[in-house]
């Protein structure tokens, strides 16, 4: 396959950045998208040019590190996969492919296609945890009865890998799907009830402080989420927040 790549290049956080064109030939349909970028980078290095910086780690859709906006969609044209799980067979010979970083003020570009997603870490640190006594008398989690429906929903919410595709896809750069998933995964389980009030208040407060936008329920986040996190989690977070605000 012969491709034209239009890639966002930005030297550092202060650089203005611009889209640059690259012609790449001999691309195998069996390559993953990131392998295709590896091939491009090899060519750039051999020509003495700066390779394209992009985030990647596990390359099997689990770590949530890859963050590419491909042809106008987070993680590319396929649904329920991350960019590292995308293969070149999803494209045609002669295609022009746009590759951009996540766009959100709360996710500033560090270099080329790499953005700073530490805002998610700070939200998580604000309350996305449970405090468990580990002194030796901890109750066996399997001994606590949990409704199957709640266990399933908590597990679904916990599959969020924090990649930020929800923020990237949202026209408002809202992080509510991410925060909703993190709040829900604990709110649905008895272990999460103890800190439920503080958790939702603190996580939403941090989310707002990071400068994410307001959710307007377009549903783009749910469609583009590689793990299929449901909008139901945002509704649950809203409920939890209302309850917590009335208590607090």
């Amino acid at each position, binding site marked *: 396959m012969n491709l034209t790549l239009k890639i*966002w290049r930005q030297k550092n956080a202060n650089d203005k950045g611009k889209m640059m064109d690259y012609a790449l030939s001999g691309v195998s349909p069996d390559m993953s998208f990131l392998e295709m970028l590896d091939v491009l980078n090899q060519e750039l290095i051999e020509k003495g040019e700066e390779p394209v910086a992009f985030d990647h780690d596990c390359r099997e859709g689990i770590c949530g590190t890859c963050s590419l906006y491909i*042809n*106008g969609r987070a993680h590319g044209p396929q649904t329920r996969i991350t960019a590292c799980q995308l293969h070149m067979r999803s494209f045609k010979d002669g295609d022009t492919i746009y590759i*951009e970083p996540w766009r959100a003020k709360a996710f500033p570009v560090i270099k080329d296609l790499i953005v700073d997603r530490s805002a998610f870490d700070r939200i998580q640190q604000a309350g996305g945890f449970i405090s468990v006594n580990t002194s030796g008398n901890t109750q066996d989690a399997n001994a606590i009865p949990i409704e199957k429906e709640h266990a399933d929903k908590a597990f679904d919410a916990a599959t969020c890998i924090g990649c930020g595709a929800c923020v990237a896809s949202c026209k408002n750069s809202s992080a509510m799907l991410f925060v909703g998933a993190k709040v829900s995964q604990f709110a649905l389980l008895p272990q999460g009830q103890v800190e439920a009030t503080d958790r939702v208040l603190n996580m939403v407060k941090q*989310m707002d402080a990071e400068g*994410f936008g*307001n959710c307007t329920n377009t549903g*783009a986040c749910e469609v583009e989420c590689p793990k299929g996190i449901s909008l139901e989690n945002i509704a649950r*977070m809203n409920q939890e927040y209302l309850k917590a*605000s009335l208590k607090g």
Partner: protein
Amino acid sequence: MSGILNSSIGRKFAMALSAFFLMIFLVMHVSINFTSVFSAELFNNMSHFMGTNPVIQGLMQPILIIGVIFHFVMGFVLEAKNRSSRGSGYAKNAASNNSSWMSRNMLLSGLVILAFLGLHFYDFWIHEMTVKYVEGNMSGLIDQNQPELGFRYYEELRAKFVDPWRVIIYVVSFVLLALHLLHGFNSAFQSLGANNKYVRGLKGFGKIYSFGIPALFIFIAVYHHFAN
């Protein structure tokens, strides 16, 4: 509790509550207007009641105006915040693949509805306020000296829809209202945290409401234009 009003979720709650209030008002408005299609007398009597009842005029009307202003102002505030959160845009963005046109263009449909409200206030509300509270004529009669001529409301309604351009503006505005409601109805439930199997069952009703209410308004305008 005070923090909720300054939070992103609090703003969503406020927007949803004002939306519910306005959606209930639309049902009442279209119900009264629709009486004009089959009974001029009933329409006149209801209009006179609504226009002279002290509770409606002194309490409900100000609440409605505040609700409308709040909904629009909050909409603009949210839009401004959201635009600043986005920063720079994408060179290529395939938003139509993941969200509906209505959901992405609530500001546009809202602005058309706002412009329409300006015309609607000019057509009916300002005239009503002038007659009742500036001229001091609370009779609602076509001619105070000739009470046998009856109330003026039906005649005034008919007169407004003689102009085809006004009817076209009304029709276009109500189409945009339908699109606004099509997203807004379910969005309001979601914002209030109601997204379960029972509420999802309301989606069908939401579509009927979103098309039905504007369709009735359109019918009323077109009916009076051709009945003229």
